[in-house]
């Protein structure tokens, strides 16, 4: 029987090439038209520590990283013990017999990774040995991997050919070892090439590229896991005349510099994670108060405090909503897939310019490191919005009225004061009650410009619906599909525009008897927000530092629905 999908996990010690192996497999498989998705998790240290990376290869679009493993590649005994129970019935374990021998064999076979690698003349070819063995197990043609190696290592350097030959030899050796073992997982069905051109990209890269597409020309950031990659990418790529990219001395410096850049007329951005967003709270409040456009990316990790720097969680939502003190309702866009990371970034800039204020792009660790094939964005079809600029003479009242007004750019007529204190129409500090009323309502009125964005809905007649947000979209949509197939009467709602929610969607949600929100936090943050807006919402929560597993989520949704039907009461 042909297989349409397989999941491989590489587990071992940091620095043993787990990520390279999973990304290599993803690259090779996607190059011939398979759909791929990687997942990486590691401890917060430079070298060593238990690390694992996973790759899923499928003939259809991949929604989650996979519940159970078809193949576990265990580089050491600790990894074997930690992950062996997640191998599916009929799955296979490849273990490094140079490092250990498992107690009970089961469906497993050993290879001496290092010894085999040495035979190729390239001691660093261990992961190629493993890829070769894998390819045999799943019946993937040798040619696919050979081509991948040739392309990857043709870098115009001396010695390229030697490395290519060694790596191909490694692939062959691995294949022969697997063949000797006698195991096979059946043949992988040939790829069904996705329609249209594809790119292979991870979430952090997609956010950065989206920002470029939206016209970012000013970036100041500070290193922090898991957002550092965006800073590094910008340092290398946001180049050329008129661009500014800089590593600041702290997130406080970063947010305030980005504020200054936005005020000076730039499309300005910074990316951070939870602890950095905490430090940026006051600056975000200033941008809200003074009506200055800017975009802050928060790649969420486990919290609170230093929390789990390299694990995934969706627990910054409440802070993102009101990052500073006082009356603030921060616009939030939270992408749910790698593809959405790109479009969310474009939209975050559009929103910032459209309503003249700060916008938070709420990403997640699990999206940031996930490498996936997505349809190539068509730049000519993108709608990029720019600032409504004041072009009159001096003596302009920048903050006149109860709604958005054109923004002057320093250096041109129309000077005003961008003031974090409550201010009058020209930006001077005031304490008058009627002025605070006008300015507060003015700031909130601008959110109306953002509340007509798109959302997904399906089976909208159902009275109980699932509404995930952010990166839980993938597992939730897989669980939803499974429950639908089992005949459950469930609806589906989803949007990446979390604040303000699309007004039509909110109206529909209010009519439901129950809205179930799968989310990765303890408090049930999104369902709390929905309840405050008049929606009967409950959460299904998880706080393990890992994404939902599809089967588990489907089971919990079924239980919650049964409880609802039994009790007949809501929330």
């Amino acid at each position, binding site marked *: 029987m042909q297989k349409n999908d397989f999941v491989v996990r590489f587990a071992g010690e940091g620095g043993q090439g787990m990520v390279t192996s999973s990304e290599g497999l993803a690259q090779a498989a996607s190059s011939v038209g398979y759909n791929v998705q990687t997942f990486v998790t590691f401890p917060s240290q430079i070298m060593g520590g238990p690390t694992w990376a996973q790759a899923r290869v499928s003939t259809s679009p991949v929604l989650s990283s996979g519940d159970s493993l078809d193949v576990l590649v265990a580089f050491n005994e600790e990894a074997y013990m930690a992950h062996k129970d997640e191998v599916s019935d009929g799955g296979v374990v490849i273990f490094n017999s140079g490092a250990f021998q498992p107690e009970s064999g089961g469906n497993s076979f050993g290879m001496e990774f290092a010894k085999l690698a040495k035979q190729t003349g390239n001691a660093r070819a261990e992961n190629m040995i493993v890829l070769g063995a894998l390819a045999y197990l799943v019946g993937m043609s040798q040619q696919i991997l050979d081509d991948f190696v040739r392309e990857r290592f043709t870098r115009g350097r001396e010695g390229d050919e030697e490395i290519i030959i060694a790596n191909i030899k490694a692939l062959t050796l691995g294949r022969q070892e697997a063949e000797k073992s006698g195991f096979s997982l059946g043949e992988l069905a040939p790829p069904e090439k996705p329609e249209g051109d594809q*790119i292979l*990209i991870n979430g952090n890269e997609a956010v950065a*590229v989206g920002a470029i597409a939206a016209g970012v020309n000013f970036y100041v950031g500070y290193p922090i896991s898991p957002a550092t990659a965006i800073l590094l990418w910008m340092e290398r790529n946001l180049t050329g005349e008129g661009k500014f990219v800089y590593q600041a*001395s702290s997130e406080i410096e970063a947010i*305030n*510099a980005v504020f200054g850049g936005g005020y000076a007329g730039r499309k300005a951005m910074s990316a951070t994670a939870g602890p950095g967003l905490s430090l940026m709270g006051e600056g975000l409040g200033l941008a809200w108060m003074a009506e200055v456009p800017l975009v802050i990316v928060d790649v969420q990790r486990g919290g609170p405090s230093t929390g789990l720097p390299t694990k995934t969680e969706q627990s910054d939502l409440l802070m993102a909503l009101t990052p500073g003190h006082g009356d603030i309702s921060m616009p939030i866009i939270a992408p749910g897939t790698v593809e959405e990371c790109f479009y969310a970034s474009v939209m975050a800039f559009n929103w910032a310019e459209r309503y003249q204020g700060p916008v938070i792009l709420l990403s997640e660790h699990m999206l940031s490191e996930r490498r996936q094939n997505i349809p190539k964005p068509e730049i000519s079809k993108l709608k990029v919005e720019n600032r409504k600029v004041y072009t009159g003479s001096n003596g302009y009242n920048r903050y006149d009225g109860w709604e958005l007004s054109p923004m002057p750019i320093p*250096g041109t007529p129309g*000077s005003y004061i*961008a003031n974090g204190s409550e201010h009058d129409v*020209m930006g001077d500090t005031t304490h008058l009650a009627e002025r605070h009323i006008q300015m507060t309502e003015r700031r909130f009125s601008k959110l109306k410009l953002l509340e007509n964005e798109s959302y997904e809905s399906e089976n909208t007649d159902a009275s109980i619906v699932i509404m995930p947000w952010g990166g839980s979209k993938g597992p939730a949509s897989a669980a939803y599909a499974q429950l639908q197939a089992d005949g459950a009467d469930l609806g589906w709602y989803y949007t990446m525009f979390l604040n303000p929610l699309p007004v039509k969607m909110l109206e529909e949600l209010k009519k439901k008897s129950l809205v179930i929100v799968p989310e990765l936090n303890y408090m049930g943050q999104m369902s709390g927000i929905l309840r405050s807006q008049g929606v009967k919402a409950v959460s299904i929560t998880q706080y393990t530092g890992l994404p939902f597993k599809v089967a588990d989520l489907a089971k919990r949704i079924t239980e919650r629905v049964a409880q609802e039907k039994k009790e007949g009461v809501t929330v």
Partner: protein
Amino acid sequence: MSAKNPEYDFKWCPGCGDFGVRRAIEAALKQRQTETEQPMVNNVVVAGIGCSGNMVHLLEGEQPYGIHGIHGRSLPIAMGVKMGSPSLNVLVVAGDGDFLSIGQEHIAPQAARNLDITAVIMDNGVYGLTKGQSSPTTKVDTITSSTPFGKSEQALNPLMLYLALGVSYLASHVSTRVKDLGTTIADAMNHKGFSVVHVQSPCTTYNNTFQELKGNPKEGIAPLAWNIPEQHDSSDLEQAYEVVKQGGIPLGVIYRNTERPSLQDRVDEINNKSFERKIESIIESFAI
């Protein structure tokens, strides 16, 4: 604000040193406008929070752009404005509490970068707006509202701090010498790099040091302020340190390093050797 604004109800106390600094800044901006032939809107005044921060609202005459931002964060905001629009002249106005206490962490990085802006610091040795708490430049043992038994910290020497952190232009002044101060601020704005003009600007309500600064021969009080001799070579860092070590309040330019490239020079250099990456080619680089 160019005219009296009935909604704006903040006032400096009668005799506040900041009045003198205000007139000096107005003169410096005017002088710059004449010299560079740039319109007033080419200037951005970035204010801290405190009495001195209200400078941005109280400037009279033709109006520059302004930011009245966050306590302690005037420098990073100024960095954003300057690097966002390099042809602007950016002037920071802040007090000793704002700049040297909560905001001190931001001085070192801007000095290291040589960000091309000017900071005018109004030092009154006290938190005035919050009614008389001790500040970094308040003298040890001083009784203030927050140090009822005397201040336990020794006073910061801001001039020494600036030199040690690598500020490329440093002047020291008093608020009463309006004309000289105006000329000095204009000179500092012409300096290509991070310039600091540290001004003694006494608080008549909580820490009136006018007499100390000027001296009072009748009562035998020697003046704290003294003129830096003409032969002082401000390009020599060692001599600059000597001036500061002499104590008191030196008047004039202490240090001026015209050799160091500014942050903008560095950025231009990098941008000249790199090229703009077009979005289409970036996306193509991820093609499968």
